[in-house]
């Protein structure tokens, strides 16, 4: 006997469902189910009129459960939770049944069987709804402070922007000074300003802010708490500094690909990576000289360490994005230093995207020559009598064998994720297949990670130039501020729970939780597991680990799953 009062609404979806599923038949089949007091069909459940009708039913019939059998929950779960909410019904007493994507549309060929399936699905929804409970969002007060990990251009710009919004910022920089790669750079594209000047200006501005504190030689060594209220520990020189912050922005940047010995002659004097060549340019005042010898010609080899090109065991498969642009720019800077220089660019594809096409134009107009090689037949570099001899088959002239003599070979090396295991042991952020930090979704939820309150930005996320790094840093700032300025956050209550009667604190579950949300507490006279609901993401991967069956996730409880199985399976016995 269920004392529940459930309203069930079966949607025609204007024919999308009712053309294949006999909705009236479904309604008649379920109208007598235990606990069902309202069973209706509707042309469009999501229309204003239908929503209003549902609200009236909830109020007049004193419903304490609601099922809408319509489209996929990805479309309207929140719509109908909203309807429940407006009617004064707790939104977690609502269950959505997917009759369109997973029934009518999938079985347009067999309407009778689709109708039969629809009945099962709606029955399962009702069975689940009978076991729903009212839940409240988890509310956490936030601390108006942020921690920025990594003081490169992305981190410094994030710190200033947060400070502008009235949020206090701590910057933790691992090395002896802030600024990252850009601090070491001379002329940069596209603005032709010196990187070191840009950073000096940012550092000066930060120095003038009372609400920014920069720590150098600093590393994040511990993190606990959750979104809005993290307790973190920095190890600064040999001191430990505890801090309390509401959000964490991770801007730890990138590493540069280091070629394998012998990869396009790497290891031989005169074969330089792109950062090494950039340094040579930045240090030159007049015509280019390398180790005391004038440089008259340069060969550039593109995509080294990117797009599958590598002598290493696991080549990076992605395009590093910045290197075509940076190599074109370097070529123009080199020309400006030594106008008689001969420059040969051996590329696979030129990816000077968007306005950076101008860099390509400029390099060409300064006399650079472009030759295209096939990835299956990369150029060969040898050193003969103090000079390089580079051979390739040029695809632009239908595979002509070309030999070039040069003084320097520049390997246009890509970006790599920093191999910083100790940081991620603390942060526990998911990494992509490319080993960079992974955002939840590049379009729907950029810069957010699965750890609420921890954002990623800059080249720590993916290969990026400095403008792109700063843009993402400002996105992370905006998201941090949106969270902290409100004063509190609300989290989904669909988290794991422990049945303390059944739990014996065998601790089997503890290590299964990727978010370290399971802790030991004393309940009465015994020790049991407890879920920190602010840390728990409700994934449920701890659930099968419990030998006592003491764990469950709200909204997906053991009783609910079995009831759904009964509702759908029993009818076939």
């Amino acid at each position, binding site marked *: 006997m269920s004392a529940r009062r459930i309203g069930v609404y079966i949607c025609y979806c204007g024919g999308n469902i009712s053309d294949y599923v006999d909705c009236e038949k479904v309604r008649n089949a379920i109208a007598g189910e235990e606990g069902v007091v309202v069973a209706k069909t509707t042309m469009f459940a999501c229309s204003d009129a239908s929503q209003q009708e549902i609200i009236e039913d909830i109020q007049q019939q004193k419903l304490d459960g609601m099922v809408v059998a319509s489209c*996929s*929950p*990805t479309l309207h779960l929140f719509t109908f939770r909203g309807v429940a909410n407006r009617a004064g019904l707790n939104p977690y007493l609502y269950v959505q049944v*997917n009759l*369109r*994507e*997973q*029934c*009518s*549309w*999938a*079985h*347009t*060929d*067999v309407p*009778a*069987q*689709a109708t*039969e*399936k629809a009945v*099962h*699905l709606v029955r*399962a929804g009702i069975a689940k709804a009978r076991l729903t409970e009212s839940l409240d969002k988890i509310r956490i007060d936030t601390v108006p402070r942020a921690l920025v990990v990594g003081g490169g251009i992305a981190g410094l710009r994030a710190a200033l922007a947060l400070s502008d919004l009235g949020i206090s910022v701590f910057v933790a920089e691992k090395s002896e000074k802030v600024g990252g790669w850009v601090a070491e750079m001379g002329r940069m594209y596209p603005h032709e300003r010196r990187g070191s000047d840009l950073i000096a200006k940012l550092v000066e501005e930060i120095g003038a802010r009372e609400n920014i504190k920069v720590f150098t030689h600093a590393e994040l060594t511990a993190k606990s708490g959750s979104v809005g209220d993290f307790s973190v520990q920095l190890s600064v020189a040999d001191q430990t500094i505890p801090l309390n912050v509401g959000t964490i922005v991770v801007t730890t940047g990138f590493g540069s690909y280091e070629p394998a010995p012998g990869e396009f002659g790497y290891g031989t004097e005169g074969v330089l990576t792109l950062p090494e060549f950039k340094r040579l340019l930045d240090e030159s005042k007049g015509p280019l000289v390398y180790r005391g010898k004038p440089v008259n010609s340069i060969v550039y080899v593109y995509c080294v360490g990117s797009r599958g090109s590598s002598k290493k065991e696991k080549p990076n498969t992605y395009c590093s994005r910045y290197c075509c642009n940076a190599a074109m720019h370097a070529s123009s800077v080199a020309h400006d230093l030594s106008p008689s220089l001969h420059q040969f660019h051996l590329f696979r594809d030129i990816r000077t995207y968007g306005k950076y096409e101008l860099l390509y134009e400029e390099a060409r107009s300064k006399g650079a020559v472009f030759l295209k090689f096939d990835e299956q037949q990369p150029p060969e570099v040898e050193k003969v009598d103090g000079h390089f001899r580079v051979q390739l088959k040029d695809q632009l002239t239908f595979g002509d064998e070309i030999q070039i003599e040069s003084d320097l070979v520049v390997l246009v090396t890509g970006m790599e994720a920093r191999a910083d295991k100790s940081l991620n042991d603390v942060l526990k952020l*998911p*990494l992509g*297949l490319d080993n960079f930090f992974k955002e*939840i979704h590049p379009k729907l939820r950029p810069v957010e990670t*699965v750890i609420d309150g921890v954002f990623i930005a800059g080249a720590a996320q993916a290969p990026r130039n400095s403008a792109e790094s700063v843009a993402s840093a400002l996105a992370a700032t905006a998201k941090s501020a949106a969270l902290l300025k409100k004063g509190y956050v609300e989290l989904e209550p*669909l988290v794991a729970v422990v049945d303390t009667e059944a739990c014996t604190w065998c601790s089997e579950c503890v290590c*299964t939780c*990727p978010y370290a949300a399971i802790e030991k507490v004393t309940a009465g006279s015994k020790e049991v597991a407890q879920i920190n609901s602010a840390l728990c*993401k*409700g*994934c*449920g*991967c*701890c*659930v*099968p680990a419990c030998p006592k*069956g003491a764990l469950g*996730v709200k909204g*997906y409880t*053991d009783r609910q*799953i*079995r009831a*759904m*199985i*009964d509702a*759908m*399976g*029993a*009818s*076939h*016995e």
Partner: protein
Amino acid sequence: MEQGGGTAAQEFRPEILVFSTATISDIGVDLAGSSHLHYPPTAVAIPLPCSSGVRPDWVLYALTHGFDGVFIAADGTDCPFVPDCTDRTAKLVGRTQDLLREHGIPPQRLKMAAICSVCAESFQKHMKYFFEEIKKLGPSTKAG
């Protein structure tokens, strides 16, 4: 509309329970539907947050309460929660198959595959194939 295990063997249409995941594989199952990729209508899905949260005794329960096969549509590497979710789910499947053997149920009644949010065709293929495989096994035993 009456069908199922008891009657003539040629009419046997295996009932398949799919454990999908709300944010990834269920979206792939949706896409199969919105692309009108037909698969056996006796397959029904219960979405969970993550496939590594399927309890072995749920599978046993399903196979003794009207279902003839259980298919776990795992997230593959896309899982937003658990980075090693596929490995965990695979281990779980192993554990569950042991449990099924203990109860005299052929372990082939449980199958797992990674279904991503755009894996509509792969889901359809898996369903059709699994349906035929289970058909060969005949109806699963009932509770008792």
